[in-house]
């Protein structure tokens, strides 16, 4: 709460000094992230990303002079705590919408309350279960895992790589991917020759990779987020595996190079364009927005934004845009979100609809490759 | 006293701990309503013998018969139900419970409420509780502990803890009571009180086995004595016989 209070004070001071909308009552939106616990490495970056979007929005005048204020909660990466944090927010703050949470399980735990209370929510969680089936009040900003993997499948098809090994974490995200890869294999005509799993806390996946490698795959897809990305990459290289290696759409983060070290070289992954913004052609409609955002993020947080930041920021941008259009009314905000078409975000062009609460498609996704400590666009 | 009846028979009992014999071929009998003392120098195997009788561990060979029933393979709690209870060399009163509760635990074999009944506190349990509390209180009166029945037993002075432990053992209405060094650590006055107490218990018709180092006490109150040394029985008989037995004198005082 102290931090929340601090933000209010700072924001209040900014408004006062700039003379904009003095005395106007702020519109509150809730934001729940995994600031501690196993999801914290993503949650903290996401909070930062949202902060930038909101400040930018308020600087432009907010909603008819009323600033937007973010009320932050921590779910400690725990479903029970997530519901408690939400319940607390709903009871104590007049929030009109919610951003977050970070994880799929915390998100799922919050859904019953959110649906009952009728709070338009933009989640950051990766799992597609959140929007399948489409729920009235729930949206999610990261790419659908299926779309991201489809991006990989297109590459496989183009280069005629028909035998694929699949290694995934045993968490929700990893298992989700394991189901998707089977569907896509049928659709795009490749064969999953081996499928192995590991625990997020494991420190060595050599055994699994050895097993996969023994089946002679032409490419290996690894579906996980966080530290195991580095370990699997290193293990694969240590085993002398030379076939193309793919990580998931959560991997294009600066930390990937630190985790995987030299082994990172050549690993491909679907990503938002934020990691390759400077290499985009000037004709790209997203380029200016990306470059500006990166600059702001780097000066403010002394850190290079990765793909997770883009998802986080987009959730905020879309929500703020909807609030601007609809005013501080939950139902109207929801309707505005659902009607959002062609919105240029950091992750792609969003076309939300009653049938689609994510709004991006495989076309928005870039395929990037790690090369000499940076990401480059593959094609 | 008439013809004495054998209540406990220890029959060629051996106990080995990892190859070392703690008891080697020990046999003796205990008569009903007598005080039988087991004495012997340190490490003679006295406490081992008590532990065997109360089932703490089984004998390596041989058997122990109590009232015509072989008890040498029974677990301690079974043996308690047969009517044998005991005290311990280093007091084992339940420090986490009150004085009264300690005695009430002693009444365990006299009652039968089990988990489900107790959880629901059925009328039967209520009745049993009242009865147990009354019996406990009367036992405490007998041992002059009634004024401290609500005390945590750990707060009692040492001598009273010793008494409490005997009270607890008596609560199980034993036919045979084993006392392991009941006066160790007591002063002379307390020792005399304890001697009276033990004789009083005997008067209640309870057979007693007494392991004790205080020879004044042993010689004073026992009817029979069994002497152990190096895990073997070296002598046995009345106090007068034992006191005169050169083998006993040698075991205690060393060789001439």
């Amino acid at each position: 709460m102290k931090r929340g209070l601090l933000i209010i004070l700072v924001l209040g001071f900014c408004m006062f000094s700039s003379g904009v909308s003095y005395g106007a009552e702020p519109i509150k939106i809730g934001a729940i992230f995994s600031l501690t616990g196993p999801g914290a490495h993503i949650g903290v970056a996401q909070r930062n990303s949202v902060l930038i979007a909101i400040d930018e929005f308020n600087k432009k005048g907010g909603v008819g002079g009323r600033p937007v204020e973010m009320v932050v909660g921590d779910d400690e990466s725990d479903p029970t705590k997530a519901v408690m944090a939400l319940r607390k927010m709903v009871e104590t703050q007049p929030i009109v919408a919610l951003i977050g949470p970070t994880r799929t399980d915390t998100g799922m735990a919050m859904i019953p309350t959110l649906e009952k209370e009728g709070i338009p929510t933009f989640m950051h969680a990766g799992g597609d279960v959140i929007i399948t089936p489409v729920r009235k009040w729930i949206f999610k900003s990261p790419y659908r895992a299926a779309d991201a993997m489809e991006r990989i499948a297109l590459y496989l098809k183009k280069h005629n790589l028909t035998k694929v090994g699949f290694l995934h974490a045993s968490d929700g995200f990893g298992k989700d991917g394991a189901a998707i890869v089977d569907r896509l294999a049928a659709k795009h005509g490749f064969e999953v020759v081996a499928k192995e799993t590991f625990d997020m806390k494991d420190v060595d996946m050599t055994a699994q990779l050895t097993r996969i490698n023994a089946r002679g795959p032409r490419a290996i897809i690894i579906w996980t987020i966080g530290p195991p990305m580095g370990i699997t990459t290193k293990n694969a290289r240590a085993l002398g595996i030379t076939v193309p290696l793919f990580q998931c759409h959560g991997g294009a983060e600066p930390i990937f190079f630190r985790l995987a070290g030299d082994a990172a070289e050549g690993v491909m992954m679907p990503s938002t364009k934020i990691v390759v913004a400077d290499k985009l052609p000037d004709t790209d409609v997203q380029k200016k927005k990306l470059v500006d955002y990166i600059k702001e993020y780097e000066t403010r947080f002394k850190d290079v934004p990765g793909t997770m930041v883009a998802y986080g920021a987009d959730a905020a941008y879309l929500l703020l845009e909807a609030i601007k259009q609809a005013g501080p009314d939950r139902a109207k905000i929801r309707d505005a979100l659902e009607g959002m078409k062609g919105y240029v975000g950091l992750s792609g062009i969003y076309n939300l609809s009653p049938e689609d609460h994510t709004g991006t498609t495989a076309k928005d996704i870039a395929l990037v490759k790690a090369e000499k400590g940076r990401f480059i666009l593959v094609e | 006293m008439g013809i004495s009846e054998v209540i406990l028979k220890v029959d060629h009992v051996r106990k080995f701990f990892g190859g070392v014999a703690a008891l080697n071929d020990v046999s003796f009998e205990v008569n009903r309503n007598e005080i039988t003392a087991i004495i012997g120098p340190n490490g003679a195997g006295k406490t081992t013998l008590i532990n065997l009788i109360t089932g703490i561990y089984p004998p390596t060979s041989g058997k122990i018969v109590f009232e015509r029933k072989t008890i040498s393979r029974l677990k301690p709690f079974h043996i308690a139900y047969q009517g044998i209870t005991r005290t311990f060399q280093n007091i084992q009163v339940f420090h986490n419970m009150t004085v009264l509760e300690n005695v009430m635990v002693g009444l365990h074999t006299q009652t039968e409420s089990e988990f489900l009944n107790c959880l629901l506190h059925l009328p039967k349990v209520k009745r049993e509780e009242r009865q147990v509390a009354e019996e406990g209180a009367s036992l405490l009166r007998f041992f002059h502990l009634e004024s401290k029945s609500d005390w945590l037993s750990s707060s009692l002075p040492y001598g009273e803890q010793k008494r409490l432990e005997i009270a607890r053992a008596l609560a199980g209405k034993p036919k045979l009571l084993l006392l392991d060094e009941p006066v160790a650590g007591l002063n002379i006055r307390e020792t005399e009180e304890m001697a009276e107490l033990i004789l009083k218990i005997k008067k209640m018709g309870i057979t007693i086995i007494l392991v004790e180092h205080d020879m004044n006490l042993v010689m004073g109150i026992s009817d029979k004595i069994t002497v152990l040394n190096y895990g073997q029985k070296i002598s046995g008989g009345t106090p007068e016989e034992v006191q005169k037995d050169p083998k006993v004198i040698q075991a205690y005082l060393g060789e001439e």
Partner: protein
Amino acid sequence: MLNIDLINTYYGQIHALKDLSLHIEKEEIVALIGSNGAGKSTLLNTISGITPPRTGSIRFNGVEISRISPEKIVSQRIVQVPEGRQLFSPLTVLENLELGAFLRFSGESRKNIEKDLHYVMELFPILKERREQKAGTLSGGEQQMLSIGRGIMGRPMLMLLDEPSLGLAPLIVTEIFNVIRKLQEDKTTILLVEQNAKAALRIADRAYVIETGRITLKGEAKVLMENEEVKKAYLGKDYREKRRQI
């Protein structure tokens, strides 16, 4: 050399030593006899600092030692050979002996320690044969010898021997008592706690009889040997009188 003055020691809630006083002169063997549970071992542990007295004083060569830690007392050269041997059974005989000299390694030359090692091996030749064996594999008598040998390695001025004859065959008891006498000749002062009263009184200069934490008799060992009271301390008085009253 050692002066114990009116000490009271509690063992948990047991008042184990009651206003106990005794003294030991240089190079004598003093025997402390009494039945089990009389407080003999407690007294040794009180001197060694393991169960410090609640009141009273213990002075060693004029220095108060009743409030200092066991290891400091060992460094004063008071070494106890505990009852039941208390060897480090998974360690070898040699290691056990070395540890007996634990505190001396920091202050003395290795040569001195080596010399004492030879001395112990001479006293107990069997230990030399078994030097690399684990202490736990020795026979009872050998273990007792090792325990005493370990004590000697501390180069004590005062050695506290707790029941060295316990559980040993008569022949070995004789051997051990011979060694004790030899130690005295080599200028070690000895406080000997024994249940085997006769053997103890035979080699002691003076003796104390302890009963329920109090000294009940003291005097020249030879005198005490003849005293009937000693016998009673072990085998008890006749209690029958009392019993009839009840």
